[in-house]
């Protein structure tokens, strides 16, 4: 199943992404509606983070293109905000909560210019929204995992974007943080923003999201949650990898074959 929408926030067309010549995602086509909470789900190694990183322009594409709000990323970068996985950085870095959240303003500031008072105000405001106002000057290494995740979220909020791409924001966080993130994301939706997040927990999926993507090396299903979240699609997504696909990927890696002849 692949439900298409008009004027999508995200349009992925014939996307293949490879790592060391081995395709991780094969020929993905999909559209995501604006103003939706979208969950990307699938088993380990299904290519969830890969899809998100591709949307953010962080990986070279073997084929296809991605348009955000109908345009390539470079034209709409200011409207897109990214929350990487918490483990992707070293939290022992000498910076405070405020320092990191201010980084969310860097894209708007561009090169060379320093954060202004207005940027600082916005950063403090976002720190308040994630409930860390008492820790604004705390060193980031001294935060709990959940608090660190909220710092990343505040940094993304400080970008004042229309589309938020979040890579496993619920991974390894406490109940307080999970509740805080859910509230925030729903508030974003009410403001008409689009949120796309990689998610692991099947139990909460139908409560959190109104649009669901199921991946397993390829797109299994994309559509409103109540249509996608059915045993038939879940079985196809979680029922094991396609062995032939995996074998071909392995051959391409070993033989250094390109994904497209070009």
């Amino acid at each position, binding site marked *: 199943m692949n439900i298409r929408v008009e004027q999508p926030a995200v349009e992925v067309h014939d996307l293949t992404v490879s790592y060391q010549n081995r395709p991780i995602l094969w020929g993905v086509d999909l559209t995501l509606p604006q103003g939706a909470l979208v969950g990307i789900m699938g088993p380990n190694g299904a290519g969830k983070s890969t899809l998100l990183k591709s949307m953010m322009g962080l990986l070279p594409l073997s084929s296809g293109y991605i348009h955000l709000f109908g345009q390539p990323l470079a034209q709409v970068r200011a409207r897109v905000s990214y929350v990487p996985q918490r483990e992707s950085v070293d939290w022992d870095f000498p910076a405070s909560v405020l320092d990191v959240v201010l*980084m969310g303003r860097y894209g708007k500031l561009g090169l060379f210019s320093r954060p202004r008072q207005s940027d600082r105000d916005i950063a403090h405001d976002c720190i308040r929204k994630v409930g860390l106002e008492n820790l604004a000057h705390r060193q980031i290494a001294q935060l709990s995992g959940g608090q660190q995740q909220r710092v990343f979220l505040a940094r993304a909020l400080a970008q004042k974007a229309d589309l938020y791409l979040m890579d496993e924001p619920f991974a390894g966080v406490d109940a307080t943080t999970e509740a805080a993130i859910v509230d925030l994301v729903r508030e974003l939706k009410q403001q008409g923003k689009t949120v796309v997040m990689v998610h692991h927990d099947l139990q909460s999926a139908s409560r959190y999201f109104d649009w669901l993507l199921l991946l397993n090396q390829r797109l299994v299903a994309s559509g409103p949650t109540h249509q996608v979240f059915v045993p038939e699609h879940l079985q196809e997504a979680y029922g094991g990898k396609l062995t032939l696909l995996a074998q071909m990927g392995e051959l391409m890696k070993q033989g250094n074959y390109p994904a497209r002849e070009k």
Partner: protein
Amino acid sequence: MDGWLDFFTFRDANVRYVTLGAMLLGGSVAVVGVFGYLRKRSLAGDAVAHAMLPGICLGFLLAGQKSLPWLVGGAFASGWLALLTIDWLPRQARLKEDTAIGLVMSVFFGAGILLLTAIQHGGNAAQVGLEDFLFGRAAALVGSDLGLLSGLAVTLLLVVVVFYKELALLSFDAAYARAVGFPVRGLEFLLTTLTVLAVVAGIQAVGVVLTAALLVTPAAAARFWTHRLPLMLALAAGLGAFSGLAGAWVSYVAPAMPTGPWIVLAASALALGSFLLAPGQGLLARWWRQRAHRRKFAEENLLKLLYKMGERRQDHDRAYQPADLPTGQAPAQLAATLRRLRAEGYLTRRGPGWQLTPEGYERGRRITRLHRLWELYLTEYLRLAPDHVHDDAETMEHIITPEIEQELEKRLRRPEFDPHQNRIPYD
């Protein structure tokens, strides 16, 4: 004493050159080193420094004499090539980064030694002194060198100031930097060039073998003292400059001593000192905290013991002699613990014995309560066997905060008995 005075008045022009040069180098190289340290690329700096030797030798061969611009140009070119190779190899050849660093360092340095040996046996009289680039020649710095060095140092510092925001983000979260549209490739290229420039400056003073120490050591030392990046940069610069000063001074008062290695030794001493003495993260501070914890545990255990002895006798108004207290502590230690508790107001003396004050009674009762609450929590919520919970509670009773205590009481619905049927004492 004359040595001191002569040195620090800088009357001697040579002293002035050497000292200023060493300080500028130490400071500016350290600032660039901070970013290498934060990106966990310190080892790459070492490889780059070693990789400059063939460039220096080629520069000499091309110029036919030891002309500084040629030597520096050669060093810059081969150092830069080395760092680019270190970045390129893991991407293309599927080698791990440490392998790439090791390969590049040994291949370039080997080639350099080869060239150096060939030059030394080549009969060109101008080659004398070229081997100084191995271990540095700070003591031979002259006025014109200083001009070049200060130019380099000021450039490094300026670029770091101008690109501070970009370099900080690149070091913390390169993927995010790319996501907000920063030219990450360009910035990495800039940082690479800065590192090579810093090392070029450094080999003048301390040689290709030791320059990495100037990159790494002040940064590592500074990290112990602060959690803020601007302060860390300033501290690293200060420590680097001070090391330069110290090296220059040692080689002045003891002319047989080489400047470069002393700069490195001074920096290492500062790093070692930071490791030992820094507040919070230093070894001494940690040791001190552990000692405080041990003392607190011993004190609270004693108060708990006295409370429980009173509980068993149903008589809390009794004094005990130290010999009657089965604490497991050595007599001298026990005496010290007793004295501290008395000074803190938890114990009082009665004749030869010791007795709980009302405050001590309350604290002993609280520790007993926490112990029994935690035991119950473990058996009820973790389903541990009652005979497995005592040891864990022995530690937790000292750590549980009043908030967690409240939560425990709430979750267990203010229970009356612990898993061993001992009554849990409340206020």
